[in-house]
């Protein structure tokens, strides 16, 4: 299981990659592994303006459906339409071709509330330990 460096994470397992005043958003390797085979991804519409922490889509696997939350407030400027026909990209490449949306970041200061890669890895380790008890 991989936690990609250089990304910002949420405890609900979404990541954001800052690129200037834009950000790309997806779900982590841990999340895709927990979900198992992704069969459908419901994405927002380009132009939707959503707040930090708001639900922006849903991931369906064979036996589960999970909401996904936006790490940073902003306007949706692109969605990954490849996921319509190839939802398995989320499993194959969670940090690459399996990205969900691209946003124009409304409030860059929100980034400080997100976890670094190391912080997220530590969070996952703690959770695993809790689960072990």
């Amino acid at each position, binding site marked *: 299981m991989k936690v990609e460096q250089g990304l910002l994470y949420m405890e609900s397992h979404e990541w954001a990659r800052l690129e200037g005043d834009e950000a790309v958003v997806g779900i982590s390797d841990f999340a895709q592994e927990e979900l198992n085979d992704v069969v459908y991804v*419901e994405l927002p519409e380009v132009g939707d303006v959503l707040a930090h922490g708001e639900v922006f889509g849903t991931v369906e696997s064979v*036996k589960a459906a999970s909401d996904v939350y936006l790490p940073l407030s902003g306007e949706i400027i692109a969605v990954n339409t490849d996921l319509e026909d190839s939802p398995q990209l989320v499993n194959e490449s969670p940090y690459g071709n399996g990205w969900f949306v691209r946003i124009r970041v409304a409030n860059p200061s929100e980034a400080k509330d997100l976890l670094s890669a190391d912080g997220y890895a530590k969070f996952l380790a703690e959770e695993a330990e809790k689960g072990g008890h």
Partner: protein
Amino acid sequence: MPYVPHSDADRAAMMKAVGIQKMDDLFQDVPAHLRYPKMDLPEPLSEMELMAELTAMSERNADLKHFMCFLGAGAYCHYIPSVVDQIVSRSEFYTAYTPYQAEISQGTLQGIFEYQSMICALTGMDVANASHYDGATAVAEAVVMAHNVSRKKRRKVVVSPFLHPEYRATTRTYTQGLELTIVGDESVRNDLPALLSMVDEDTMCLIVQTPNFLGELEDLRGVADRVHSKGALLVVVADPISLGLFQPPGEHGADIVVGEGQPLGNAINFGGPSLGFFATRENLVHKMAGRLVGQTVDAEGRRGFVLTLSAREQHIRREKATSNICSNEALNALTAAVYMAALGKCGLRRVAELCYHKSHYAAHRIGRIPGFQVMTQKSFFKEFVVKCPVPVSDLNDGLLEWGIIGGYDLGRDYPEFTNHMLVCATETCTREEIEYFAEALQEVAG
């Protein structure tokens, strides 16, 4: 957790919380003499005596074995070939329950898959679910789906005044928490062009029934394009028997096709159980409610059937499911499938043709009775409207004495149509029965 009944202390705490002194206080709204009425029951009977008594009671019903029926209005009397009951009564099939465990339900799942496939062929659509409770709930689910397709952004539903009145009522009840605006059915003058002019950028769907509640066929040419140009969906409610003869709604560009599946081999049974069929386009399947059976292969490449796209449903998606109902009318859907398979494409077309010709003969014959006037102007399928010289309820009371169940009293739903009877004639009516009905109408009215 153990199943412990409430203790006295629990009861005392609960009664204190809701502010009552004793349990009887909860029932104070029920008049005292009705709470424990004295039951004046007769002496017990033997099984043989009881059967005789119950049979005598049941024979007081005006059932279709002893009465001719010219009543339709949503539930239709069609001939059911013996093979239908023979097959669905097999113990392997005889459960009303929707399957959860694919591994042990292959036969049931295959039956549902074939039902879905035939509904798709009949409606001209890509995908059909395993059925809803009835036509009314299928319409209501279509509205919920259209709302979800618009991502809950659109609030308006435009509905024809000639969608079945009970379907409109059910849709309003079903969707009351969604804060929708349902318009179009406030006036019988709202014909299809008028309804189309109400479809705007806030409209999630237009709902049209064909043949409509008055039996008339609606002209769907160009309707889908007009609806789609506003970004809305076209929902068509259809009589499945009529689809054996007329162009399927899918070919007119409908996005959702629903209807009452009872005419497909299911008896009227004093009003149910029934089934609602529901079909849509493939690109909308993730927004569809209901169970869906798909065909797949197992690890060894053998054909098998499974519940498909279950993540739409309530047991997985909880409050965000496409519907709160994730069940189906499995036995009724199977019955419909066996009926369609038994008749085949040509048989279904023949049934539809007979309905068309017999109802037109009936209209022609009734139109010649003095004082009666056939009001239906447009093309109709198996029902038509007759203006009567006396109240319809009086006519129907008189007809019962002739051994006839008369038509539907349209004044019940449409004040404009007081003294208007909706008459239905299907393939089960003989020419002699139609003549007898016309004679009875003339005598009873005179």
